[in-house]
């Protein structure tokens, strides 16, 4: 979820009403935000809805708060003034970055707070909504420094050199990708082809090289800037239109006058921004039954107005209209949530459903609990450890080579947590190695899930519960472990036998495989002295590990 910074003074000024921090803390919930930190006038807000970029700015929050506070109600009135500004899209960009939508906003009075919001909104849209600029990149250009019409065109890497932001000398597009910090960061978005997208004006001045960098000359917005040109580029025209609507709506909240731009594709021309209201119908009964509260028509109209919808009711059907800076409304439930937010979650009296159902734990849960209690009865301390482990612990220290059926993480946070364990014994060893200075005997057990690959499974992985126990004290040996195993099996009613085996982690001649119903289900033995040494332990250890879930089936 995006985190944004807003200014309390700025909010108060836009609302025309002094807002205290306490009030804001409460009010911000209506804009799906939560205050995360305060630094003087600046407030950090977590915006929870990743699908509502219209709320990721002071302007968007203020739009909602005007509704919540009753300063305004219903759909905002953002006028799109028709203009004859044209932009022409080069068909060569079809496989590079085919789409572009634009707008011009005039009459802006930009102060520092406003400027920081412009930059922040542009960044957040590109980062989160635009998937790190891949789907959506936003450029904001000083309109007074360019001459329409504008051309969104393909350039060869060594043509159309321009001075990128924060540089002093012109660089070719190729140089920008190689030398400019933003070029290096985002080159993977364009460098698959031998042409790059740029915007140039009718004088051949380069505005920007999307999605990489604006030009220093035209692409630097300051508090002196009055009129701006917005370019939004990407792949999906609907997504771009939403992003453009979010941006121009924010400027409109600040009193900017929004002018349309005609985008000329080879086969069609569209006029953007397209602020045509969207209409949606909901049955009143559905609203009430979803929320479990009785609302009359006027309540519903008022609550929708607070959430910046226009609404009318006819024959118990509510017709809801909203502006397309929102793209998140896919179902009536999205509007119902807004009604609920306006009503106030904490104004709803919680009501526990009185449904008669029978509670049941899984049969395996009951069996696992019995097995654990049996081990406790045999005097063993239960432990629980992480499923994530590493090759060194699971195999290296255990004198094993890594088998092929291991489940491994591609993006581990640390190497020590990079492999999902396939057996529990190393976890017991790790535990013992951490407690060498405490009282012995240390008799431990763990019942946990282990995983290994299994081509017959839907997820190619078999995860199931195993049981492992360790006996560790100066007299620990095979016989002592066998006594416990014997008692465990007897008391769970499982007939088993132990057959001679060899295993690199265990001492030869003191190791056996546990057979249940003719299948190998586990291992019992004295840990090999070298393994004990590898873990830095100075006491003999006898261990039993078996497929608990499989033998309990």
């Amino acid at each position, binding site marked *: *979820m995006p985190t944004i910074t807003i200014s309390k003074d700025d909010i108060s000024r836009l609302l025309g009403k002094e807002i205290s921090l306490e009030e804001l803390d409460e009010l911000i*919930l*209506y804009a799906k935000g939560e205050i995360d930190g305060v630094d003087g006038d600046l407030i950090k807000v977590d915006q*929870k*809805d*990743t*699908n*509502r970029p219209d709320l990721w700015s002071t302007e968007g929050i203020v739009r909602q708060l005007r509704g919540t506070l009753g300063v305004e109600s219903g759909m905002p009135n953002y006028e799109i003034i028709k203009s004859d500004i044209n932009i022409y899209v080069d068909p060569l960009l079809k496989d590079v970055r085919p789409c572009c939508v634009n707008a011009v906003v005039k009459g802006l009075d930009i102060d520092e707070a406003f400027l920081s919001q412009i930059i922040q909104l542009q960044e957040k849209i590109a980062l989160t909504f635009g*998937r790190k600029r891949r*789907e959506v990149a936003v450029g904001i250009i000083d309109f007074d420094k360019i001459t329409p019409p504008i051309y969104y065109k393909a350039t060869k890497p060594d043509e159309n050199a321009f001075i990128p932001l924060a540089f002093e000398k012109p660089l070719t597009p190729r140089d920008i990708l190689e030398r400019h910090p933003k070029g290096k960061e985002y080159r993977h978005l364009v460098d698959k082809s031998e042409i790059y997208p740029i915007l140039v004006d009718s004088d051949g001045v380069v505005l920007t090289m999307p999605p990489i960098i604006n030009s220093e000359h035209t692409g630097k917005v300051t508090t002196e800037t009055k009129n701006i040109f917005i370019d939004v580029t990407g792949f*999906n025209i609907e997504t771009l239109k939403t992003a453009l609507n979010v941006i121009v709506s924010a400027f409109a909240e600040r009193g900017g006058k929004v002018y349309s731009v005609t985008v000329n594709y080879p086969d069609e021309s569209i006029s953007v921004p397209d602020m045509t209201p969207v209409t949606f119908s909901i049955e009143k009964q559905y609203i009430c039954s*979803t*929320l*479990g509260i009785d609302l009359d028509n006027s309540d519903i109209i008022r609550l929708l107005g607070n959430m910046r919808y226009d609404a009318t009711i006819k024959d118990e059907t509510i017709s809801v209209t909203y502006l397309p800076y929102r793209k998140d409304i*896919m*179902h009536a439930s999205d509007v*119902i949530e807004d009604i*609920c937010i306006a009503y106030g*979650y*904490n104004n*709803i009296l*919680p*009501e*526990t459903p009185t*449904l*008669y*159902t*029978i*509670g*049941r734990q*899984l049969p395996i*849960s009951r069996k696992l609990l019995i097995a654990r209690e049996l081990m*406790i009865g*045999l*005097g*063993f*301390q*239960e*432990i*629980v*450890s992480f*499923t*994530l482990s590493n090759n060194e612990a699971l195999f290296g220290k255990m004198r094993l080579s890594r088998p092929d059926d291991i*489940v*491994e*993480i591609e993006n*581990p*946070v*640390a190497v020590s947590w990079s492999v999902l364990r396939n057996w529990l014994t190393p976890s017991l060893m790790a*535990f013992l190695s*951490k*407690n060498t200075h*405490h009282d012995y005997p240390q*008799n431990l057990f763990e019942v946990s899930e282990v995983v290994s690959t299994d081509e017959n*499974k*839907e*997820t*190619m*992985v078999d*995860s199931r519960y195993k049981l492992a126990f360790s006996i560790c004290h100066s007299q620990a040996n095979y016989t002592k472990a066998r006594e416990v195993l014997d008692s465990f099996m007897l008391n769970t009613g499982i007939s088993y036998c132990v057959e001679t085996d060899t295993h690199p982690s265990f001492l030869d001649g003191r190791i056996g495989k546990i057979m249940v119903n003719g299948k190998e289900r586990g291992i019992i033995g004295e840990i090999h002295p070298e393994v004990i040494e590898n873990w830095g332990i100075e006491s003999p250890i006898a261990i039993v590990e078996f497929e608990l879930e499989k033998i309990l089936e």
Partner: protein
Amino acid sequence: MNVSDNSSIINNLSNDEKLLLKRLIAIKNEKATVTELEDKDMPSVAINRAALGLESKRLITIKESLKKRIIITKEGKSLKKSVPEREVGEKIVSSGCKVVFLDDLGIDKRVVGIAMGWLRKREWAIVSKEDGKIKVSLTEKGIKELSSPSWIQEILSKVEKECVYLDEGISSEQYSILKGRKAVDIREEKERYLELEVRGREIAPEELLVHKKISQLTAELLRNNKWRDCEFKRFDVSLPVKRIYPGKKQPYLAFLDDLRSTLVALGFQEMRGPLIETEFWNFDALFQPQNHPARDWTDTYRLIHPKKGHLIDEGVVQAVKAAHESSWKYMWGPEKARNLMPRAHGTCLSARQLQMGIEVPGKYFSIARCFRPDVLDKTHLIEFNQIEGIICDPSLNFKNLLGVLKQFAIEIAGAKDVRFYPDYYPFTEPSVQMSAKHPELGWVEFGGAGIFRKELTEPLDVSIPVIAWGLGVDRLAMFKLEIDDIRFLFSDDIVWLRDEAMI
């Protein structure tokens, strides 16, 4: 005093007390000093302790008397070596004559004077002068006594070695002789003696059964009925003992076991699913579009090996694809959905349950181990548990969801108050976040919940409302276990595990 009184007195006597009492009763005059009573079976320390016990039970009295102990003096020590009159007398006897002239004997002149005086005084000889020479003639008494051992030396050596009291091993006459010769002196000493009281006298010695002292009751003692003759050594029950360690549940698992019981008691059925999931169940079936920030709702792990799982139910896959494509407006692809990952939340279990089929009404839960790429520290785990749950019924609404959440906060967390906040999850609408006011922790974020979106339930062939939640239990467990470091939930510290109280 009747028998039962006696037997209750006797039962309260220790072995030593019985022994001592027995000895005192055996003595005729019913009193004796500690010295008289002590022997190797009962040293004076034991006697004194037993005497105090008997006295406190008013069976005897401890008394003290003064005794006159004879002490040998310096003169006495030299007298013990040599008695002058005996030395002279023996010389006369060995000369063979009864009458001798002193000069002829050649005796040290220093001794002669003293010896002459005592020969006369003890009537051992008659001393006269003849021709200016001293003539000594032994008397019959002298001859007789000189032939028997010297009582003076005998007594003195006894006094030197042992305790000799006046009238005990030395008569008043002997004492006054020795005292006259400055050989001895008297020192007064206190002596403790024990005297039977009336109550003590009434006890018959045969009642005083003295038992063998033992520390461990054995099978043999029981078998032979010998334990009846034994006295059990009294233990100091206040002393500390060596610590032993029981088999014990891991505290966090014990907490989760309780949680499972509570949920079953509330009418929930348990669900289970694989630790490794396909993205299909972790994301796609939960209406999280493949190429959208909503997919980044949480950071997740990916696998190197194995990489791809299977999409089993083609009908569900097509329905999910259709829901994604019509609502999110993009081309849904099965390849991404086949990617494998350790499950990032428990909600995939609910989706699987919906697909497998549900009872109506139905309540389901799971305590699900989940994985997210966090760095392990005081407040973050690399693996954690989530209580995932759903309730399915045509009558359910948002108000019911809040009711269930509140019930959980009270039943599970012991919360006193709850607050609800708008929240966002791609798979629920409306969505809600609950904070619960804990008596000691204050307001704690408890988890997210909502009504499953139709775009989620319909492809899984469920057409009734499903309310769902995924609550974090770790912070709650931390509170219950009184720890401020979340790593203790998976503790590798045996001391903590051993010390942690279970109730």
